């Protein structure tokens, strides 16, 4: 590869990765701020709107992703990769920016949740179209012997997007203070997206069409009906099914378990303090992210198949021991309280919203023998209880790093399944229908199997509650993940070829 071509490929990777990172950032800030958004946009006592709320958080963003894959995949195979993922970027950035501007339910009533739902649907559709475009675009610029390495940079963006969203929220929250942040500061991360999207659009506009697709178009060999060709022809359909059930399905659950279910588990089941949760995830992601590139590079040397399948198998074998260790780290029943260190603090100040009123913050801290601290914070406005009581466990220094390590191990599994998958999917399908064919299994695997992991895992946990065991089995949620990953491993092992470096 000449020096000029190498410079070119890095520009292609940067322009694709920055845009994809911003799309993931946009997608995640909504999830990270869901608690605040539900208070701002939904009345808490109306069952109809509560239904909308549930639908919104539970399903909308994930379920529409496969539809976005179909719509934009088709467009990408007909019009071209460059313009299609430019459109998805504008749609994602625009809808995110608008969420930051939507007036609250108190101001415009039912229009608020409906507008949020609409924007969330657009976000999901855009994300459904973005990834396939970026992966295809980079892959079609890459030499076949470095496709895994170059496309793995795209794979880092999903994790980095989560990382950036957590950092932006953490910085905004800390700078503004909790009350101002809850009042209007939560809009800042949404509005900030427009600047990032603007920069990304500027970079992407200067890019050229994928050379392979441009050649195909010039020769008049592009598909006139990619949907029919992808899913109407048995030869392609069976490869779409294989890509879904032999790779994307398992990859999706391993990814969402390592990054999202793990976060939800330590926050809700282990009841770790939400700021410490953010730090744990941020450290684990920072340490784990380079491994996306490592496994992408390795897949160029030894093939994609066994790296991805090993990641799945490790998840199947080790999730239960890992989650048991995570649960035990925060299990207060296994710790002894040092009663001499019991502490109550009361701070009173003028209320920011109405300085004539006094707001008191009461903090009760219980310290345990291993230095774990449980803090309970409640507030009183003019002597009356105000807002929710927040209770969280703050792990000791060693407990914190042990938790980081346990999440980091899961992120390694994620990098094994996710690092090589873009190159794997791209190589499975011909150029003329590649965008459409690879996007659908990817987004069913990730959006449906992966995206619904927290909801389905929570349902398994709830079902494990019996009269004999009313608190349920905290690890029951892993059953879904383990079954899906195990089935996918068997299919991948038996049906997939260990092909790589395909032209």
């Amino acid at each position, binding site marked *: 590869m000449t020096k000029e071509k190498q410079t070119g490929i890095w520009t292609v990777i940067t322009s694709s990765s920055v845009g994809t990172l911003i799309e993931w950032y946009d997608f995640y800030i909504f999830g990270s701020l869901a608690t605040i958004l539900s208070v701002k946009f939904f009345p808490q006592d109306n069952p109809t709107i509560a*239904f909308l709320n*549930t*639908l919104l958080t*539970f*399903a909308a963003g994930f*379920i529409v992703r496969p539809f976005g894959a179909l719509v934009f995949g088709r467009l990408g195979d007909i019009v071209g990769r460059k313009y299609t993922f430019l459109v998805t970027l504008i749609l994602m950035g625009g809808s995110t920016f608008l969420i930051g501007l939507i007036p609250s339910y108190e101001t415009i009533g039912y229009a608020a949740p409906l507008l949020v739902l609409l924007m969330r649907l657009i976000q999901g559709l855009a994300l459904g179209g973005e990834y396939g475009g970026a992966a295809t675009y980079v892959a079609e610029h890459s030499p076949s012997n470095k496709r895994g390495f170059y496309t793995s940079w795209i794979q880092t963006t999903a994790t980095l997007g989560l990382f950036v969203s957590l950092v932006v929220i953490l910085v905004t929250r800390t700078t503004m203070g909790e009350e101002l942040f809850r009042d209007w500061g939560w809009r800042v991360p949404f509005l900030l997206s427009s600047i990032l999207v603007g920069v990304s659009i500027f970079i992407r506009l200067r890019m050229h069409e994928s050379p392979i697709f441009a050649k195909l178009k010039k020769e008049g060999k592009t598909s006139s009906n990619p949907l029919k060709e992808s899913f109407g022809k*048995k030869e392609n*359909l*069976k490869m779409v*099914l*294989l890509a*879904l*059930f032999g790779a994307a399905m398992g990859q999706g659950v391993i990814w969402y378990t390592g990054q999202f279910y793990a976060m939800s588990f330590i926050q809700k089941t282990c009841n770790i303090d939400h700021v410490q949760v953010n730090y744990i995830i941020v450290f684990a992601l920072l340490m784990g992210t380079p491994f996306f590139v490592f496994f992408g590079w390795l897949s160029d040397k030894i093939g994609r198949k066994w790296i991805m399948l090993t990641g799945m198998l490790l998840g199947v074998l080790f999730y239960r021991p890992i989650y048991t260790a995570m649960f035990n780290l925060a299990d207060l029943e296994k710790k002894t309280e040092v009663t001499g260190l019991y502490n109550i603090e009361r701070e009173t100040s003028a209320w920011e919203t109405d300085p004539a009123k006094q707001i008191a913050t009461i903090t009760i801290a219980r310290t345990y023998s291993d230095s774990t601290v449980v803090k309970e914070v409640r507030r009183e406005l003019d002597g009356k209880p105000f807002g929710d009581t927040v209770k969280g466990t703050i792990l000791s220094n060693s407990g914190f790093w042990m938790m980081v390590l346990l999440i980091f191990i899961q992120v390694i599994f994620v990098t094994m399944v996710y690092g090589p998958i873009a190159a794997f999917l791209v190589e499975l399908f011909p150029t003329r229908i590649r965008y459409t064919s690879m996007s659908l299994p990817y987004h*069913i695997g990730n959006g*449906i199997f992966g995206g*619904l992991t927290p*909801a*389905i895992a929570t*349902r398994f946990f*709830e079902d494990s509650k019996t009269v004999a065991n009313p608190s349920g089995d905290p690890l029951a949620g892993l059953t879904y993940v383990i079954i899906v990953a195990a*089935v996918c491993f*068997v*299919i991948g092992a*038996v*049906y997939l070829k260990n092909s790589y470096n395909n032209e």
Partner: protein
Amino acid sequence: MSAIRKVLGVVWILFSILTAYYIVSTAIREISAGTPADAAIFWPIIILIFLPILLGFALFGYYSLKEEYN
């Protein structure tokens, strides 16, 4: 490997049918019982999403049985 794929084809078809049965029967039971509270929201979404996917999984099993992946 060809024989294993044929046998697994039957396994995937049966797996699809049994999972579909489990989902639909659990949905009917929980929705008619009214517990958990969100059953009427959760299950229709799950059925709407997973039944077409299970149909695809059965088709995958059928192709495997017919040795399309050899």
